[in-house]
Each structure stands twice: as C-alpha cells, then as structure tokens.
C-alpha cells in the first residue's frame, strides 16, 4: 500500500502530482483527507484506494501543521461521496493524530474508536508497539498499517510513500 496525502504540485513529501497518482499501479492510501483529493477524484477512478480519516480535522484546515502550505480537509459529505461513487475503502487515522505509543490504554482506545464502523486503521507517524497493535486488533479492525515500522503482520503492515 502506498501512502499519499495531497494531490497537487510538489512542495514536499506530502504532495504527489496527478501524473504520479495516475501512473501508480499499487493500492493507494490517503491520510487526511485533503480536499484536493476530492477535487482530483477523476484520476483515482478505477484504483484501489483507502481513505484514512483524521476525525478532528474533517471539514477544517491544516493550520495546526506549522510550515505546511495551507490546505483544507474534506467534509464528511465529500468523504462519503468518494466512498459511494468509487468504492473506496474507509479507514481511521485517529481523532487528533497523536503518537499512540505515548498514551495510556484508555487514551489509545478513545483515539482509535471511529465515529462509525471501519475495517482499516493507520498509525499516526507510523508509531506502533505490541501494546498499541493489540488494542487496535481488539477494537475490531481487520488490518492496520504503519509507514515507518512494523513486522508485516496483520496489524503491523507496512506502507510506503509514493516516490517522486
């Protein structure tokens, strides 16, 4: 699984342009979900895509992310549209994008509990340990991904950035 964030001109590793997205033969995942993904939905038609949603940022912007180009996030209406129209998968990426390995069990459970049932989960910053992986498994997810680590097991699957 490939990790992307924004669809647009390259500014940093958080951006991939339309040509790169169109040419990628692998399963794609987007964390966010940034509104430019909605605006470029045509380039995703026919692809296997998972949208990992960050709950607290739905419908808001990335002003919390100092130094990044200002971007807006999709509303739930726009996210549901992408899922319904193109058959994309919906995944959870926590409410506030914390390092789960630094939280108590209770705090982890709050962050990994989505507002509606979802099959897939992605760890913020890719940070995961055995305890967190077990909590994610026990929450009912079918699989979980990390971009930085993991032993490749069902709840520590690896994903990687789409290379420029």
């Amino acid at each position, binding site marked *: 699984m490939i990790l992307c964030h924004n669809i647009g001109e390259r500014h940093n590793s958080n951006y991939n342009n339309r040509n790169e997205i169109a040419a990628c033969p692998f399963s794609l995942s987007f964390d966010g979900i940034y509104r430019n993904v909605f*605006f470029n*939905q*045509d*380039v995703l038609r026919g692809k296997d895509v998972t949208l990992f949603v960050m709950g607290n940022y739905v419908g808001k912007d990335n002003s919390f992310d100092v130094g990044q180009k*200002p971007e*807006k996030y999709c509303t739930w*209406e*726009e996210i549901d549209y992408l899922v319904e*129209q193109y058959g994309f998968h919906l995944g959870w990426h926590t409410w506030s994008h914390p390092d789960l390995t630094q939280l108590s069990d209770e705090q982890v459970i709050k962050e990994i509990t989505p507002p509606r049932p979802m099959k897939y989960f992605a760890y913020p910053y890719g940070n995961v340990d055995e305890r967190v992986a077990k909590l994610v498994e026990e929450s009912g997810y079918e699989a979980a991904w990390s971009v930085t680590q993991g032993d490749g097991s069902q709840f520590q699957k690896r994903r990687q950035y789409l290379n420029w």
Partner: protein
Amino acid sequence: MQPIDEIEKSYKAEDPWHYKTTPDDINRKKKLIDLASKFGPYERALDIGAGEGWITQDLPAKEIHGYEVSDNAASRFPENVKRVLAPQGKYDLILATGIFYGHYNWQLFMEFIRNHASKHILVSSMVPGEHVCVNEIGKVIHQEEFKYRHCNQRTRMFQVGL
C-alpha cells in the same frame, strides 16, 4: 487550476462580475432558462459552479441544488437553492455555465456529470475558450451561439443515454 482563496477573494463583494446588471448576462440568463423550460420541467436540477445562485434559482425543477466551492458566494444562495458539496443521486438537468475553461477544475465537473446526469446537461461557455472535453458529454439536441460581452457564448443542450 485557479486557487480557492482567489475565488473567495473575488466573491468578497456581492455580484463581483455584475451579472445582475449587465444586459448581456441578463440576456444569457433568459436564454438558458427559456431553453431549460422548453425541454423541462425537471424533477432535480444541479447547477455546477452556481456562483451566488442567480441563474440557479429560476431553473424549472422541483428540487434545485447548487455546487459552489466559494463559501462567500454560496452564502448568498436564494432560499430555494440548496448547497451541495457532494452531489447525491441523479439529476435530470445539470447546468454548467462558464465552468469548462482550462483554468477551472473541469475534470471534477466531468466526473459530476458522469456520476449524476440522467437526462439533460445544459452547457454554456464563452467561445473561444471552451474546453474540448465538452464535446464528450453526450448527444447535442440543441445548439445556439450569440453575442456575449466581448466575444460569443455557445449554448448546447446535451442528452445522455442516447
């Protein structure tokens, strides 16, 4: 593609391009509504790039929706126009006025038409300038061209499913 913050800036003042007071725009609106009325009425209409809803509000449909990225513009929608950020279901009329230009998000608009048009799509653009993608929308069942501002306006009614 034109950045959204630029679009928002344009719509800070009401009717920034003076559609409501320019004779060519009043004429264009009349032609579009007359054409829609000739082929209608409709159950559900969607105006893609609705602006402030000035044309949208008079579409001959029971249910009228407007897709508009600018919050400033959409805040001025008349009461009978419902803003949609993500269209739902099928529309038997889709209006696409002044959106199929190279610097706009024409790929997204083509997706909306592909996903949601069930019968008629009314496209109106300045010529020259209209993107070639419009030719792929469907079968043309009516076409006319008239003087509009400093150039011409081409209006086509397409039917899908033929």
